[in-house]
């Protein structure tokens, strides 16, 4: 098992009365693509943030392990070094820091973790070019400040490019498709598809079925009120598209009251 989430409970760090994840279970094997769907406020972004190690959230119960190692014990940077990658819903702008320097620092941090020598400026350029070609990204992507002045689509594209550079084991896409037009969504989907491999897994968190039509996940989970209330294959996407979440939610709520 690559990722194993058991009975995960989490809340916003300063608001103990407001539990967001309430006993979430999820298992991801190498090479699998899991989609997590659900209505607003279900806890989708919280799940992404908790897995990536954002300190705004506090885990109150449960375990998360990555290849058998306790992920919750690790800082965000250590998780990234172990191969966890979060594509942000809103990639952050860092004025004045060039994409090139930023990503060279990141790639070398991860190479350091793997016991590989650091790439110098020239080796990094060559390596980055190969990824730019692979993803058909604009050539000048590296010369600009991190996400500054990028359109929404360009920011997401930059995150996918970073994902390609870091070659993670587990890629978490946190509503990467929100606010994207159809062309940008295709770029994201193409990026994910070209990075798919037998030892790389994906968790795609999304509102919409459209991105999933391009990515075709192996498993689809419906998250509601901090729990996964339904899991299935790709066909679940289209069921949800036709019927919405209401039936599932009602059935879940009935079950809860019967308990």
């Amino acid at each position: 098992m690559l990722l194993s989430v058991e009975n995960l409970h989490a809340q916003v760090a300063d608001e103990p009365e407001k539990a967001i994840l309430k006993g979430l279970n999820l298992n991801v094997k190498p090479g699998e693509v899991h989609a997590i769907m659900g209505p607003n406020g279900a806890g989708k972004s919280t799940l992404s943030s908790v897995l990536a190690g954002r300190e705004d959230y506090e885990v109150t119960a449960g375990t998360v392990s990555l290849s058998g190692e306790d992920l919750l014990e690790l800082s965000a940077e250590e998780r990234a070094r172990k191969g966890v990658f979060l594509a942000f819903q809103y990639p952050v702008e860092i004025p004045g820091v060039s994409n090139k320097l930023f990503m060279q620092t990141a790639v070398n941090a991860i190479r350091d973790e793997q016991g590989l020598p650091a790439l110098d400026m020239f080796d990094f350029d060559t390596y980055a070019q190969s990824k730019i070609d692979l993803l058909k990204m604009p050539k000048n992507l590296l010369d600009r400040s991190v996400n500054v002045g990028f359109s929404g689509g360009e920011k997401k594209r930059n995150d996918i490019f970073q994902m390609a550079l870091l070659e993670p084991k587990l890629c978490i896409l946190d509503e990467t498709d929100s606010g994207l037009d159809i062309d940008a969504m295709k770029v994201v989907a193409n990026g994910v598809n070209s990075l798919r491999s037998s030892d790389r897994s994906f968790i795609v968190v999304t509102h919409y079925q459209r991105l999933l039509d391009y990515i075709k996940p192996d498993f689809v989970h419906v998250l509601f009120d901090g729990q996964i209330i339904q899991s299935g294959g790709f066909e679940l996407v289209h069921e949800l598209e036709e019927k919405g979440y209401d039936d599932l939610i009602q059935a879940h709520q009935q079950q809860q009251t019967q308990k």
Partner: protein
Amino acid sequence: MSSKTSPKMSPAARQFIDKVIGLSTSLNAQTEADALVVKREAAQQQLLSLGLPTRKDEDWQYTSIQPLLQQDFRLSETVSTAELSLAQLEPFLPDFETIRLVFVDGEFSESLSAGFEYIPDGLSIEMADADAIQSIALPETADAFQWINELLLDQGLTIQLDAQIVLEVPLHILFVQTQSGTVLTPRLQVHLGEAAQCQLLQHFVCLADETLTWVNGVGQITLEAGATCKQVVLQDLSDSSFYFNHQTTTQATNSNFESTYLALGSQLSRHHSVAQQQGDAAETTQDSIVPGRDQQLLDTRTLTQHHALHGQSRQLHKMVLGDAARGVFAGMIEVAKGAQKTDGQMDIKSLLLSPQAKVDAKPQLEIYADDVKCSHGCAAGQIDEDQLFYAQARGIRRTDAMQLITQAFLLEPLEKFQVQPAMQAWLTQRVVDKL
């Protein structure tokens, strides 16, 4: 010493003034030029009637000069500058071509200076010219430190660039202080004729980290019509030193003055840049980069006076303060009644890296014209946690991420400073070394 006319002063301030006057008197005894002696004596009267500023004075509200008053300064002894080797200066020398003027403890050293082959016809550089020194009159509004500069005035540097002359190679004016406990009172006068262009790099250093010095400078830069001056003031004194500098730039029509002050050293510093736009369509940039640490108090002030039409002024002041460092900024954009279509902008942005660090910023506008565009902005805060998390989520260590973000924040004024890449890179490295 007679100090009857002086206002109420603390014993420390009175003692300090008496010592400075004592230094002036000893200087007078060695001076042949009567006019210079008269000038110093007049300055003495000014200083006595003004006294030294205290934190009760509005302009000194955030800046206490107490640490300066506790010191006992003397004049530099004349040393043979040949004792200093070029190798010792190596850390201070840029890796690009310059016309280099080196002053050791205030004394010009020809052997350490270089690049004279780049001096074109139409550039004159004069040292220790009493007439030249006298040609600058301090304004009535001069503060105590300007009067002290005049009181101890001994050597001036006058640079004159004739009309149309474009100086391709930057002029590097390097003041190296080697004697601890001494005061340096440089007086710089720069005159750019019509459409003349030059780059000035004024650089203040101490030879050793232990050298404690007090630089107390006054400068006057004049730009005739269409002239362009790019100025860097690189204050890189030892951490125990003191730095006070007051410069006034007057600008004629279509002239462009672009200046960046880098406050890299000293325990207490105050850099004051006044720009006066007297001709139409002049452009002024007064930026600063201030990385503070330990107990440093770094004070930057600007006064930008728009007296003519279509003037433009830009200011970007960046401070990064760690430990118990204090940053002070005060800036004023004045737009006179007739100065229509003025476009002025002043931004002060500070990053506080520690709970003990503090910044006081006072941006001000005074506008008497009705058709102008002026604004000021002021922001102080900590490093953006979202930026840190974004970097950490890419595997970058938190400390490395802080370094990346801090550097980028601080260097913004240099990024947009239009000089040759080698100069930009060298200046950048000077700043990065301090972080």
